[in-house]
């Protein structure tokens, strides 16, 4: 399939709806091992993205400019940890598809990988540290592997979602090494990382919106 700015806007709208619906669960997950605001921050951020994209002329804008608008609006609405992490993801996504008016399947896979790498770089986190990287990195790897194996974009994003889900599930068995919960030590065991949980929600919305 070919993805244009209007498709990307629909994708962000779908993420905003999904995160809003998930807001209270994310706050509760965060309340157990953090400060209970993760759902609020994510809902604020994607709500701001939806509002900012609503004012764009989709016929005239390229994906890169749309993604940069998403980055700036998310960052300024949120701050917190998720602000720089997702803003960096969208800026890297923008850079990955620079100059393209529409995106082929492989372009979107590259965009998706750039998002995961941006989150990892900004947070200086590695897999196994009980963060959103534990969902994003396996998701990006699974999407890339599926794409290289000749799968369609929809199939590749399905693979990404499955990998994100098992990655998020695996955070229950991890001791937090980054972020607010890292001071908990072993008391963080048994609880899913809220950032990994919201990553699943985001990737699920991306996958559904582009399938």
């Amino acid at each position, binding site marked *: 399939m070919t993805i244009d700015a209007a498709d990307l806007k629909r994708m962000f709208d779908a993420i905003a709806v999904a995160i809003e619906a998930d807001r*209270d669960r994310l*706050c509760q997950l965060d*309340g*157990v*091992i*953090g*400060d*209970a*605001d993760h759902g*609020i*921050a994510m809902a*604020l951020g994607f709500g701001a993205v939806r509002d900012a994209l609503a004012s764009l002329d989709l016929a005239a804008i390229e994906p890169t400019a749309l993604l940069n608008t998403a980055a700036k609006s998310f*960052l*300024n*609405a*949120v*701050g*917190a*940890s*998720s*602000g*720089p*992490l997702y803003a960096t993801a969208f800026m890297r996504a923008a850079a990955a598809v620079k100059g393209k008016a529409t995106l082929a399947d492989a372009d979107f896979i590259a965009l998706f990988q750039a998002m995961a790498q941006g989150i990892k770089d*900004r*947070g200086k986190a590695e897999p196994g540290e009980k963060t959103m990287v534990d969902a994003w990195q396996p998701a990006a790897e699974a999407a890339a592997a599926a794409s290289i194996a000749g799968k369609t974009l929809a199939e590749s994003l399905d693979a990404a979602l499955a990998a994100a889900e098992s990655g998020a599930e695996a955070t229950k068995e991890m001791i937090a090494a*980054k*972020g*607010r*919960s*890292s*001071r*908990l030590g072993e*008391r963080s065991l048994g609880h899913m990382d809220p950032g990994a949980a919201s990553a699943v929600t985001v990737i699920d919305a991306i996958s559904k919106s582009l399938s």
Partner: protein
Amino acid sequence: MQTKKIINDGNRAVDEMLEGILAAHPRHLRSADGSPRSIIARDGPRPGKVGLVIGGGSGHEPTFLGFVGKGLADAAAIGNVFASPPPDPILECAKAVSGGAGVLFMYGNYAGDVMNFDMAAEMAAMDDIEVRTVLTTDDVASAPQDQRQKRRGVAGNFFIFKAAGAACDLMLSLDEVERIARKANDHTFTMGVALSPCSLPQTRRPNFEIGADEMEIGMGIHGEPGIARGKLRTADEITDEMLDKILAEMAPARGDKVAVLVNSLGSTPLMELYIMNRRVKQRLDDIGVSIHATWVGNYCTSLEMAGASVTLFHLDEELQTMLDHPCDCAMFRAG
């Protein structure tokens, strides 16, 4: 069931609070042009002086903006409740207070704050403003002593910001201000206890659960779980547990001087704070440590959380000079 709060709209709570603060303190504070979350001291920033920018999430009032004024911080960047401000308001603070001698960013050591302040520092560098950063890490309960750099910044911010603000006001160089700020952080030790949770204005749900007869030692100022949960004990026992840990690290000699902060996390009243302070005085007297000055009250809160923290600031001649230097802020004056 939702908690009770006197608010209009949870999503507008921070901005409406800022409107009220500017209305109450027009002589001390203004917001930067076009950046309402950048709160600037009316009197303080000046040419040749290092600018001190502090900041962090809302919900800790009077931290951070209550400590903006001449002799202390030049500006505070204000985030959402318990969330770091984004880079833009931090950058606007840096621009507003830059007097050509550099700017120092100081804030509590939290991953979100570090990412946003670092992005702002990169943006300030593009505007030819030299920025240095000193993180506060005074919470002794949040990581072992040999991992001090991993600890959270909590109520001890009060002393650390005070020392750095005085160094700026004395027109010391950026190198000197940074050195004194780091030294103040190394000399500050805080430990807290929480009795009941707080609730965010947007959710109005308790942000953690705790039994009716329980307390949590070492809880952070955002309700992050602490090091141990147990039955509520007496004021003397709680204060002793905090001081045992603080004094073991601080290792004061007989004749040393400290400043004391007994801080409410929000809803614990002065009566209980003063009962704790009585015990602090007894313990310090016992080991021959003299108290140079004491502050008791709401200095770094966690919305309506019940609980308290004790901070000791281990003084030497230089830090005492910085602590005694006059300052005039919206919610705090000294000298």
